[in-house]
């Protein structure tokens, strides 16, 4: 049975709207697990998307039963707010459902094709598109071979192949004197060291941090001048600024680049504990979520304690006469621009540790996933008692790493084996 696949099928975020498609036999089950009861076929309806008790977004949901869908399978489309945070969160929620996997490049087209949903002209056009896609992959691969990332992964691979070879030599050449397996503890030590090195790499920021921008969230109770500050930081009128408390009822995202670093500024609805206005209440929920996921929090409160120890306290309205800013705050005026430079410096300081290395060694999300799989399999190998099962986990780890670099197969391991052990009667 085919997997159910999910992917963002509109352009890369941030954008006004992101269209996430989910196709396959489990599509409806997975969609309703996240969106609740699904609307009638081919009728758009608004649904609140939740995962693990957290509201992710309010989205337009469309349902297309097989075979009357673009792929010919059960298909669900989610039109979500197009910020990367939202898209990522919704994708993650769907991937957590049983039977759902991330779509490989071209997978939706393939299914459409397999189910006879494309005519000849469309096929021609898609062929060109795919050609472009593989060219891009090729270019990326070539660029990657020079990069530090490639070196890092190759380094892991070499070590993994070395351990795998010492296990395989014990399995496949048991009758040769050279083929004595490394001792159990030696093997486990090597695996544990390798896993730790991978873990350290996994904890480094992903390359997507640069693509998507760092999330800077402006938070505080209503009418603290968040929208004014956002406009000042963005250098354009994005949020509606009015003196009525609670004007920003939903959150607003703006992408800006400052000194070469991309940021997504999020203006949240003010954090009032209770609101009579239901729409504003939703906005407040989402503000809390935005705060949880923020890279930098600008806390526009003079007295309330910081929501996170690393939040930056900002005293807005610095242009107002008689305003006394708290000692630990950066005083800023969205109107005059006073204090903005200092605030930007603080923002840069806050994200410095989250910047992926610029030497090309940063992982992207897919690479991160495969490396994490490899690390998990290595941990399992270190636990396994039966040498055969150690080998099985190491095989899974090898194929995960192979999926990162595209290098492949049992031959690479055999090269190590025959290179290091004197085998052969």
């Amino acid at each position, binding site marked *: 049975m*085919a997997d159910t696949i999910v992917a963002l099928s509109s352009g890369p975020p941030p954008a006004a709207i992101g269209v996430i498609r989910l196709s396959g036999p489990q599509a409806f089950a997975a969609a309703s697990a996240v969106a609740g009861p699904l609307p009638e076929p081919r009728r758009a309806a608004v649904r609140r998307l939740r995962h693990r008790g957290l509201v992710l977004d309010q989205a337009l949901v469309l349902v297309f039963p097989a075979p009357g869908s673009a792929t010919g399978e059960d298909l669900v489309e989610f039109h979500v707010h197009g910020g990367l945070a939202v898209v990522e969160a919704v994708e993650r929620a769907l991937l957590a459902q049983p039977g759902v996997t991330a779509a490989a490049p071209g997978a939706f087209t393939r299914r459409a094709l397999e189910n006879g949903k494309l005519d000849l002209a469309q096929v021609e056009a898609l*062929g060109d598109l*795919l*050609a472009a896609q593989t060219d891009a992959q090729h270019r990326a691969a070539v660029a990657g071979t020079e990069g530090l990332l490639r070196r890092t992964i190759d380094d892991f691979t070499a070590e993994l192949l070395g351990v795998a070879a010492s296990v395989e030599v014990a399995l*496949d050449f*048991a*009758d040769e004197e050279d083929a004595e397996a490394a001792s159990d503890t030696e093997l486990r030590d090597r695996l544990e060291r390798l896993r730790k090195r991978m873990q350290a790499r996994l904890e480094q920021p992903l390359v997507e941090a640069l693509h998507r921008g760092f999330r800077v969230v402006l938070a505080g109770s209503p009418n603290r001048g968040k929208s004014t500050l956002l406009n000042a930081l963005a250098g354009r009128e994005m949020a509606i600024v009015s003196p009525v408390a609670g004007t920003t009822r939903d959150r607003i995202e703006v992408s800006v680049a400052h000194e070469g670093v991309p940021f997504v500024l999020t203006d949240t609805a003010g954090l009032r504990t209770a609101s009579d206005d239901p729409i504003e209440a939703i906005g407040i929920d989402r503000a809390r979520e935005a705060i949880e996921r923020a890279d930098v929090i600008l806390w526009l409160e003079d007295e309330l304690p910081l929501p996170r120890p690393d939040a930056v306290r900002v005293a807005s309205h610095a242009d107002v006469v008689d305003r006394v800013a708290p000692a630990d705050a950066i005083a800023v005026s969205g109107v005059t621009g006073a204090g903005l430079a200092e605030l930007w410096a603080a923002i840069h300081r806050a994200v410095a540790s989250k910047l992926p290395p610029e030497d090309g060694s940063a992982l992207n999300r897919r690479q991160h996933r495969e490396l994490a799989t490899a690390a998990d399999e290595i941990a399992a190998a270190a636990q396994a008692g039966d*040498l*055969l099962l150690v080998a099985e986990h190491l095989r899974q780890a090898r194929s995960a790493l192979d999926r990162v670099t595209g290098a492949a197969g049992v031959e690479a391991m055999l090269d190590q084996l025959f290179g290091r052990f004197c085998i052969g*009667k």
Partner: protein
Amino acid sequence: MQFDVIVIGGGHAGTEAAAATARRGASTALVSFDPSTIGSMSCNPAIGGLGKGHLVREVDAFDGLIARAADVAGLHYRMLNRSKGSAVQGPRVQADRRRYAATIRTMLSRETRLTIVKGEAASLIVTGGGAAGVMLADGTALSGKAVVLATGTFLGGRIFRGELRADGGRIGEPAATRLADQLRGLSLPMARLKTGTPPRLDGRTIDWARLPVQPSDDDPWTMSPMTDRRVLPQLSCAVTRTNARTHEIIAGALDRSPLFSGAIGAQGPRYCPSIEDKIHRFADRDGHQVFLEPEGIDDRLVYPNGISTSLPDDVQREMIASIEGLERARIVTPGYAVEYDHIDPRALDRSLAVPAMPGLYMAGQVNGTTGYEEAAAQGLVAGLNAAAHACGLAPVGFDRATSYIGVMVDDLTLQGVTEPYRMLTARAEYRLHLRANNAETRLSAVAAAAGCLSSARLERMRVRERARGEVDEWLGQTRTPHELRLAGAEVALDGTRRTLAEWLRFAQVTPAQLLQGLEAEASVVGEAVEDARYAPYLERQAAEVASLHDEQVRLSNAIDYGAIAGLSNEMVERLSAAMPDTLAAASRIRGVTPAALTAILLHVRRRAA
């Protein structure tokens, strides 16, 4: 003379192919230079081993020859990896060389549909682009609807020993150079490989008393389950080793080895390096093991395994004399290296047929493999399918998930070879399932459907199936942790009632604690216990297999990969050489990406539209 199938070559591939076609009911001719050499073991007298033993058992599951002949001739049995999981246990037998070959000839003579034809196969008879028979050197024409080429290293073979050069496959036999020329004319892709052998020693001149021995296994297992018991008295092997003096002699003569003088350019097997290679590449070792394997019960020849060489005679003598226990050993036949042609097996399909010439099949060393077992397994595949082609029977396919034969055929036809291909358990991703001791369970049904099982084998199959059913029923019973404690297993008292099969996964639980009172054949019980222990892994692998729906997408061998936009040159080259038959096969070729697969699928659908 008129046959359904003509098999050229009487080695392990040829005999297994001929026997398989005959078992399927095809009238078969087996053509050999010299019928008295049919069934010869041209290299070491051992059959089986790791990965190889799996192949032997699989061929045997089709009622092939190799396992039963090895049992008749077996003079030393050793189960490799006995202490490890049974998936990597490799049964190996040292066979009496003369008895082995004689047994093969006897088994062939019992096949009523099989005729042995003495002669040199000079050329293929080709009609309408398809293979239609074989022309012998004496002018005799053998016509047939299918031809299996199992010509080993006879194809363009060239022997090297020191400064000496000779044409031929094995010492003392002519090479099939005329057939080779014709195959070149077919413009099949070809390449050269090399292999080698050690000098053969006169056992009466070895000082056995000084050397440690390796006895034959005590427990009376056999290569084929159809063998009742071992018939020959069991001999021991002895072990000695090379030393600093040996290495000095070899290092001093490297310039006289054709391997190092540049005379041999072809790639040899990495897992079976010559002693020259070992000393050159692993210069830090102070010695290498040499196994002294008797070639027969009443045969004075001894095969010193581990010192294959192509050094000149005088150096070989000096080298042997430097080894403990061999000081006075006499060399009967010096070692030598052979360089030979093989066809690029990517030119073959999964039935080992040559699509460029319908009716022509290739098996064995000619496809770039090494080893009796690899050859025998290919002979089986080619034979079963040549018979199918000739007699309108169903083809027999092998896949990676159910047999080592499938792994080998897939590797050969998709990836090709860069060194003589040898089976290793590491090549099988479904290794936990592909065990030497469950070959019958995996393959009997396929073999029965192909109509190549004897009535005795079919009866055995039915008995085993019934026994397995009873064992599975037993393992389906449930027990509480408390009951397990009473049986002597120190499991945690978590209150969970589990089936016996589930309990077997616990490290604290031994099969004996759960199987008391169960009466069934030990091999069936052992198999069920292994299945239960590896169940979570086997289930995961079964899911992997089930998700390969790309197996359903057929690819024709007329696809012009160069015309598909988006494929890199490297992908085009590899895909064109292998001509994968399904999209799943294409996905296994190194370097082919998911996007490339979609591009291929688009291309296929566009052509179909």
